[in-house]
Structure formats: C-alpha cells, structure tokens
C-alpha cells in the first residue's frame, strides 16, 4: 500500500518525467530557466498548483457532468493559480516579478490539465495528490537542472554563486541557449535511461 504511493511519486521523476520524457509544459521550461533559482521557483510554483488542483479535481470529478468537465477543470486550476499569485505577491514579490507572466500562464500548462484528465478524475484524492507531487517534483528537478546548466555555462555561476570573473557564454542565458541546452539534456536523459533499461 505504502509502496504503491511511493511508486506513484517516483514514476514522475524518471519514467514519466514531464519535461524530458513526456515533453510537456515546454513554455515555462524554456522561458524561466535563465538560472537555477528561477527554474526551481517555477517548478515549485507549478508543483503547488498541480497538487492542489489534482486533489480538488479528484474530489469533485464524480459530480461534474462529462461534457463540461474541461471548462470546470480549467476554472478550478485558474482559481488555484490566482491564489498562488496572491501568495507570491505578498511573500516573495521578487520571484513573482522575475517569473512575471509565466505564473498566470500555469493555467494553460498542459501538464496540469493533462494530469487532471489522465489521472485525477479517475483516482482517489490521496493518490491524485501523490501523482501531483511526483510529476511536480519531476518538473521541478528538470527545470532546476536546465536552469543550472544554463547558469553554469551562461554566467559561470550556480544558484547565484559566481565562480569565474567576467562573463560566461552569454548565449546560454538568451533564447537560443534555452533550446540548445534542452535539446542536449533530452538526448543525455534518453541515453542514460536507455542504458538502465538494458
């Protein structure tokens, strides 16, 4: 029983990693990973919404008529996103400002609606929370790694601590570097997990 819940959480980390395997939620992945901290903040923000919306949708799904389920889910997700906006504005205004538009855009992150459709609406509240936690953590870790790689190459620092004097390879902090770094990370992830499978 406990094993089952644990597996629900861990599958989101590697086997169903939303970024590297399922390739979902690419917009925030590329846009907010200019540094490890930014990537991690975006991941945690998504995790927050994902867990709460998964739970709420799992609890209400039996009462929602089939034909209006998508709009109903969207409203539920949007409500949690707005709550997150308030909390961030009040307690972490700097991070809120850095992530900017990508916080309200969690509403249209395909991961959140995807989990609602694929998992939360047919599983129990606790299982859905575990699933949200797992997928959210997988997303957070992926964004942190991507942010870290871009920060290391782009500005020669990690989590804001600088190792080198002067600049890094600036292009990695800019748009082209986002695409490039993600491409190579996906390839690396594929290689590593393929070896494990053998």
């Amino acid at each position, binding site marked *: 029983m406990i094993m089952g819940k644990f597996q629900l959480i861990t599958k989101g980390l590697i086997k169903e990693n939303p970024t590297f395997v399922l390739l979902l939620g690419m917009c925030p992945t590329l846009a907010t990973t*200019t540094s490890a901290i930014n990537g991690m903040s975006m991941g945690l923000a998504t995790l927050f919404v994902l867990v709460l919306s998964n739970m709420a949708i799992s609890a*209400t*799904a*039996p*009462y*929602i*008529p*089939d*034909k*209006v*389920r998508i*709009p*109903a889910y969207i*409203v*539920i997700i*949007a*409500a949690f996103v*707005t*709550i997150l906006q*308030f*909390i961030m*504005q*009040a*307690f972490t*205004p700097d991070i809120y400002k850095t992530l900017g538009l990508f916080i309200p855009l969690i509403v249209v992150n395909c991961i959140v609606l995807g989990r609602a459709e694929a998992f939360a*609406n*047919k599983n129990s509240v606790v299982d859905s929370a575990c699933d949200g936690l797992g997928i959210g953590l997988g997303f957070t870790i992926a964004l942190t790694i991507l942010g870290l790689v871009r920060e290391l190459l*782009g*500005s020669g620092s990690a989590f804001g601590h600088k190792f080198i004097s002067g*600049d*890094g390879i*600036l292009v990695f*902090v*800019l748009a082209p570097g986002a695409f490039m770094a993600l491409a190579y990370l996906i390839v690396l992830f594929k290689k590593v997990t393929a070896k494990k499978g053998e």
Partner: protein
Amino acid sequence: MAVQSSFKNMTLCLFAVCIVSSALLAAVYAVTKEPIEVAEHAKTINAIAQVVPEFDGEPVSDTIEVAGKKYPYYAVSKAGQPAGYAVTVSASGYGGALTLMVGVTADRVIYNTTVLSQSETPGLGAKCTEPEFADQFRNWNPAEKVLKVRKDGGDVDAITASTITSRAYSLAVETAVTVYDAIVAENNKGE
C-alpha cells in the same frame, strides 16, 4: 463514474464551480491584500532609501507635470529641512523600457540611482544594474559633468558593447535633473 450530461446539470455544475472558485478567490484576496501592500510599500521605501541621503519620517509622494508628461516623485526631509527628492523616470533602452529611481539632494547633486525595472540583454545591457556602471552616478554634479556617454561628448563611461543602454540610462538621469528643477521651481513659486 461521471454524471450523465443534461443541459440543466451542466449549467448548474459550471455555475457552482464558478461561484465556489470566486468565493475562494475573494477570501484569499481579502487575506493577502494587506501583506501585498506592505511588501510593495517596503520595496518603494527600500528604493527611496538607496537613492537619497538619510532622512526621517515618511517620504511624501507626489507627481509633477514636465513638458506634458507626468512624473511621480517622493520628497524626503530631515529635521524639517528638505533632504532630497527621489524621482521615477524611464527611457527607452535596447530591449524596452528602462525605469530608474534617481535621488537628487537639496543642493542639486545626484545622490544615487537604482534600476526599478529593465529588460536589457543579460550579460550586456543588463550590467547597468551592477555597481561598476551605476556607481559612477553617485555624487554626480550635473553642473560640472555632462550626462551623456563619452561617445556623444559627455562624461558617462558606457558599458562595453551596450552604448544604447548607457545612453538610455544617462538620458533618464538627465530627465530626473530636469524634473528636479521643475519641482524646486514649483516649491519656490508656492512660497
């Protein structure tokens, strides 16, 4: 599993979801409204404290119109004497608007500047927030030194490879001095 859809229950259900969500939001909004305001206020005070000399009491917020544009500013005082003004100005940089808060002391010297928002290129123009560039404006006397980059015949050392950002920064500071003059002129008129 899910309930059969009929027009009645679809409408009812969506309506209920919307009502509950709105009620929840309104509640959270009411709770977080004060902390949000406190956080924003703290940020403004912080920015003001960076750019003007030591002051006591609350900064007084006001706006002034110069050449058809409105500029918000804060007046600070120490022991009843005006200590300086923190003016919010913006100019068009390389990647969009560059907004600064510029502090001018009562004797028309720039005390310090701070960037409120910018969208310059990271690693290039975005260096305008770093002390290497921004500190040259500390204690800058506009009567002695010209607020233009060296390339344009002024005294501002531009950021390498980011002349446009440096120009915008200089222009914004220069605008702040103009606004300061307007504020002083209006205060004198009032007396």
